[in-house]
């Protein structure tokens, strides 16, 4: 090829452009074309092999950063947390994923063959003179044309076959699911299609058909499916997982550090406030500041508050659909302008806010009513009564206004509506007081709503995935199959997002965790007696040389809950810990040669409380609430459910203990 070009170049200018030369040029250009195709093919295959060579670490295309400016308006806001894109989930490298190798189509093969021919041609041409080279090039051309023609025929035959296959699958899906559910049919088709090229999956399907209720076969099939990185079901799982992750990450990315501060021993500055304010949010340092030094700390406080509040409004903004990509600035300017006159918020308003967030439509209607009545009554006062010094409150108002306003907007979609609700807010704010605690409370409530929404989504996605597996493998539809299916889905689904989910729950449970950490700190070296364990179960060793604390194995087992990565593993820790409590009693009485007492719940709970305290892990609260939320119903009924319930009961008791401790401190 290069020789040819050189030839042309060297003759250029000197030699007349004869027919022959024209032919050379033509041939050259044809060759270039072919080479281009070949190069494309090569680059394609190298990309493919790249993916293959890095199993487990390569993130799939769906893990792209989610923020494109058009679809996510929040990225446009300067200084907002969304400016940093959500980083991809760290895929756990221990799970070996692999991709099915795709066989090349006939055309691809033909290109490859032609490429080889070309190489051979080049080598031979180098040895020959021009005349022979020309003949050779003609031969080559013919051969390549032939190859391509054959390949084309093959390709056509294949595509016909594929079409037939598609049709067959279509028919199969139709036959199976009627014409009612497109999504179901689609996934079923995709799965079957995938299986056509993976014989081992077909074999597994056969095995499952032969042993429809054998849990080990079911697990095997599911594991096989979930190991195929590009299996349609696995891709669905990843997509859902990513959706959850995408929602959680912005909420927790800046709070993970914060939660880590809740440890034992708990720093005094984090101690919960006095029982009388126990319903208010205890953890906010800002509150303390504002109580102690209203003036000089106000600036700092405000700054902090503002960022926090911005977070909050961003959170709610993030919920909005992409339709509202039109200027956010403009909207908030509108709102701000309106709200500049607003001063304080009352309980009434707070109530309204909650309501509006939950029942958006209803609110929208009410808002217009409110506005009307307001206009009728005291429109004038509104713009006159403005107080400069209240500017501090603006931001509070603004963020809450924003939060509130954005929700109706999602439905109403007009800035007119925004203004209306902004005014409605003000109309309610007549007889209220400025209260950062209330704002925190609201913030917390917003957060809890997110938590609830995300939890619901997780449930929903898990159900969907289960349904998909069932429609792909109908044998999983039996009750045993469902149970098995769910438990198999759980690990791959939760594992990569666990730390984020935990952070979300930890933040939601923060005040509870602080109470628990407080009790843990106070009783850090406590004995079973401190938590009301009966004398005969305190297991005090008569042997002074033994330094082991009572119930040590149970404490260690419970501590391991945080290192377990699956829900079932965590549940197992709880069960084992409870069992170990009983075994400790048994062994203790064996060593002193007496009959051990039976341990009913009356005895178990105080011991459990003691064991929990000695673990020094306040995050147990959150671990347990995640377990309660997501563990399969089937487990809740059994021993696992019993242990979880008992641990939660003990936790609840410990939380109340915190208040009692503070109350007695005061006296």
């Amino acid at each position: 090829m290069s020789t040819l070009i050189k030839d042309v170049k060297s003759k250029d200018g000197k030699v007349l452009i004869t027919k022959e030369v024209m032919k050379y040029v033509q041939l050259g250009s044809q060759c270039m074309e072919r080479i281009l195709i070949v190069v494309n093919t090569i680059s394609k295959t190298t990309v493919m092999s790249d993916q293959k060579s890095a199993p487990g670490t390569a993130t799939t295309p769906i893990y792209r950063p989610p923020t494109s400016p058009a679809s996510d308006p929040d990225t446009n806001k300067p200084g907002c947390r969304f400016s940093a894109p959500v980083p991809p989930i760290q895929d756990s490298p221990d799970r070996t994923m692999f991709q099915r190798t795709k066989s090349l189509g006939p055309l691809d093969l033909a290109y490859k063959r032609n490429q080889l021919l070309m190489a051979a041609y080049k080598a031979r041409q180098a040895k020959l003179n021009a005349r022979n080279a020309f003949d050779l090039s003609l031969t080559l051309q013919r051969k390549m044309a032939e190859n391509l023609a054959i390949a084309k025929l093959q390709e056509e035959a294949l595509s016909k076959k594929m079409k037939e296959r598609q049709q067959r699958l279509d028919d199969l899906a139709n036959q199976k699911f009627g014409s009612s559910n497109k999504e179901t049919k689609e996934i079923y088709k995709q799965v079957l299609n995938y299986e056509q090229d993976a014989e081992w999956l077909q074999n597994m399907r056969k095995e499952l058909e032969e042993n429809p209720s054998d849990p080990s076969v079911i697990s095997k099939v599911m594991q096989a499916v979930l190991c195929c990185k590009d299996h349609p079901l696995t891709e669905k799982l990843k997509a859902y997982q990513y959706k959850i992750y995408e929602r959680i990450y912005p909420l927790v990315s800046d709070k993970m550090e914060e939660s880590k501060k809740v440890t034992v021993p708990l720093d005094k500055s984090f101690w919960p406030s006095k029982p009388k304010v126990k319903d208010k949010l205890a953890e906010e340092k800002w509150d303390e500041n504002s109580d102690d030094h209203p003036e000089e700390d106000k600036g700092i406080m405000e700054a902090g508050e503002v960022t926090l509040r911005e977070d909050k409004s961003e959170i709610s903004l993030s919920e909005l659909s992409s339709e509202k990509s039109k200027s956010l600035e403009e909207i908030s300017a509108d709102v701000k302008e309106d709200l500049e006159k607003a001063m304080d918020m009352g309980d009434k308003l707070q109530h309204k806010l909650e309501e509006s967030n939950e029942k958006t439509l209803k609110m929208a209607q009410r808002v217009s009513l409110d506005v009307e009545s307001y206009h009728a009554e005291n429109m004038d006062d509104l713009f006159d009564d403005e107080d400069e010094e209240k500017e501090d409150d603006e931001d509070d108002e603004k963020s809450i206004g924003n939060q509130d306003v954005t929700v109706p907007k999602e439905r109403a979609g007009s800035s007119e509506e925004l203004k209306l609700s902004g005014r409605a807010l003000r109309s309610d704010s007549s007889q209220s007081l400025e209260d950062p605690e209330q704002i925190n409370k609201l913030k917390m409530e917003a957060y809890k709503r997110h938590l609830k929404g995300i939890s619901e989504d997780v449930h929903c996605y898990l159900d969907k995935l289960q349904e998909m597996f069932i429609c792909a493998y109908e044998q999983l539809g039996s009750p045993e199959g469902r149970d098995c299916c769910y438990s198999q889905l759980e690990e791959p689904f939760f594992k990569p997002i666990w730390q984020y989910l935990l952070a979300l729950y930890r933040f939601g449970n923060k005040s509870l965790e602080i109470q628990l950490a407080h009790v843990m700190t106070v009783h850090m070296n406590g004995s079973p007696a401190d938590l009301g364990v009966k004398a005969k179960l305190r297991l005090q060793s008569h042997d002074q040389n033994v330094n082991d604390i009572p119930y040590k194995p149970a404490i260690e087992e419970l501590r391991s809950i945080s290192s377990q990565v699956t829900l079932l593993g965590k549940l197992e820790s709880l069960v084992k810990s409870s069992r170990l409590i009983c075994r400790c009693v048994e062994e203790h009485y064996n060593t002193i040669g007496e009959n051990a007492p039976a341990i009913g719940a009356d005895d178990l709970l105080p011991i459990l409380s003691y064991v929990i305290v000695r673990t020094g892990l306040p995050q147990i609260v959150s671990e347990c609430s995640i377990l309660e939320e997501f563990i399969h119903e089937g487990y809740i009924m059994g021993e696992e459910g019993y242990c979880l319930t008992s641990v939660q009961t003990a936790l609840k008791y410990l939380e109340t203990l915190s208040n009692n401790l503070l109350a007695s401190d005061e006296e």
Partner: protein
Amino acid sequence: MSSAKRPNGRASGPPVGGARNGPEGKSKQIKLVLLGESGVGKSSIALRFVRGEFNENGEATIGAAYLTKTINVQNSTAIKFDIWDTAGQERYHSLAPMYYRGAPAAVVVYDITSQTSFSRAQAWVKELTQQANSQIVIALVGNKADMASEGRVIPTEDGKEFASNNGLMFTEVSAKTGMNVDDVFTNLAAKIAAQSSPESNSTTVRPTNVERTEKGGCAC
């Protein structure tokens, strides 16, 4: 997705409710919750039922708080009881609903030698009828019937009356001697089995149960 037609036609979602049906008509899993003041002998009753033995110091077991036992009732249905013991101490009361949530059966225990335990049992019954699953079958059980001659405080009639006023099953038992203990559970199982089988309805079942309770009181 829940509307998706599937060949087996089963409703979507994981199995729900206290009574998990296995393959049709073969066995049933029943969550049974034990309630009552601390020290009335809830776990002793459960142990007696499950293991059939009792001695004053008790015996070392792993998890006397959570026990299971399968029994057969007349129409050859196997009923597997998951017995959840609860802590009687008031300080653990706040999460009691978690224990009785979804339980189709409850045994409320009091000590016939203790007035407070009887009041507490009445409070439990009230709470259950208000808050638990409306289908819940409750058995009121007076324990320590073996001590009736020395220390009875609650007359059998009081228990019986309270039970019939509230539609409960009633038995006096002794976990120590084993008296009537099995009856409590077999009667519960029979009632639940009858309740869920379509041909019989609960109104015809109740009178037999009330009659059954007669023999509880006079055994000592």
